[in-house]
């Protein structure tokens, strides 16, 4: 469904740029909720505010809503029919194969290393064999993932970022010193000191921001 939305929003209607659309998809995927509705709400809101979001969401819901109700009513009027039951059996058998394939495909894409494997297999087993609530499994996975991330890449990156910030502030200090000495060398005019003060304030603000990140 996403490629379809992308083509429509970016190429045909030109509502969002390619980069914005990628942002939108990243955000829609990293927040909970129904992916199609997330995307619709984001695009609608970007383009036309709250009402736009409402319209986009209604647009993505209504076809499903109507089609399913029509199908249920249709199947209800047909009633018990061995051909339809047979067709359902066939579709379900095929669907299990297709769903299994998407699990494997997704697994191959994201499951790298022992930890993701453990998590994927563990979550599969405790849902299927012990019927543990899928919501608990998701929350547990999020918690374990955060711990694992912090223990491995996270802390390292935070350290690197801190060092980067330190270097950055050191460089800024140098530039700041240079500009200051340059100021001292030049004979002071009436406006110069003011300008210099402004610069200093800017640099300080920048330094603070850099340090926080």
């Amino acid at each position: 469904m996403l490629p379809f939305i992308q083509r429509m929003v970016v190429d045909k209607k030109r509502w969002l740029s390619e980069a914005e659309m990628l942002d939108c998809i990243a955000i829609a995927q990293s927040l909970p909720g129904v992916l199609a509705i997330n995307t619709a709400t984001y695009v609608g809101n970007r383009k036309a505010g709250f009402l736009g979001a409402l319209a986009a969401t209604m647009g993505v819901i209504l076809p499903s809503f109507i089609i399913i109700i029509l199908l249920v009513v249709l199947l209800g009027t047909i009633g018990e029919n061995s051909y339809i039951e047979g067709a359902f059996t066939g579709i379900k058998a095929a669907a299990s194969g297709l769903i299994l394939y998407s699990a494997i495909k997704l697994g191959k894409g994201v499951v790298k290393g022992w930890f993701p494997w453990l998590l994927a297999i563990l979550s599969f087993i405790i849902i299927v064999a012990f019927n543990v609530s899928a919501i608990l499994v998701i929350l547990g996975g999020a918690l374990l993932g955060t711990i694992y991330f912090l223990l491995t890449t996270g802390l390292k990156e935070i350290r690197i970022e801190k060092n980067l910030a330190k270097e950055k502030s050191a460089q800024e200090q140098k530039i700041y010193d240079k500009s200051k000495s340059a100021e001292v060398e030049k004979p002071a005019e009436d406006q110069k000191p003011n300008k210099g003060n402004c610069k200093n304030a800017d640099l300080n603000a920048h330094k603070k921001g850099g340090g926080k990140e």
Partner: protein
Amino acid sequence: MIYITIFYMFFRIGAFSFGGGLAMLPLIFQGVQEFGIMSKEEFSNLVALSQVTPGPVAVNAATYVGFNFAGLAGAIVATLGVTIPSFVIMLIVANFVKRFYYSWPIRGIFTGIRPVTAGLIGAAAVMVAETVLFNYHIFSLAFIINLWDSINPIPCLMFVVSFFFVAKMKVSPIFIILGMGMIGALVCG
């Protein structure tokens, strides 16, 4: 109140689902069981229907469950329930997002959720497969004891063929579904 039950159930599904429609199926399955709304067979019919109809699986499921259980009003309530979390979250968060999804808590959470999603989709496959391929729960003693009786050969064959077609031959899923539906109608009907 039945409508509140349905709304709550789908609101919870909407608020806790990550990773697209298929990963949502176990949540829906457990929800309908917990509230005693529908049987395993009906649930798998729903999955079969959402495979042959367009649109988000979650909306299909909400409409189907709500409509079967409490008519048109039920369908509306369920669909609203599954939609509102997405809608509210995206409206609020879309305003201050850019620095949000590169932050360490989000990346940490997704280090865990992505593999879990694969597990959830695997579980969804088993939940559907159980209703047509096997006569007993796959992790039960009865399954092993009655191994021969517990496997339905024709659906199992269809399952294997479908998997082969999509995984190795890269046939489009919609053709596989329609083809197997027709074969099922003739052979199993």
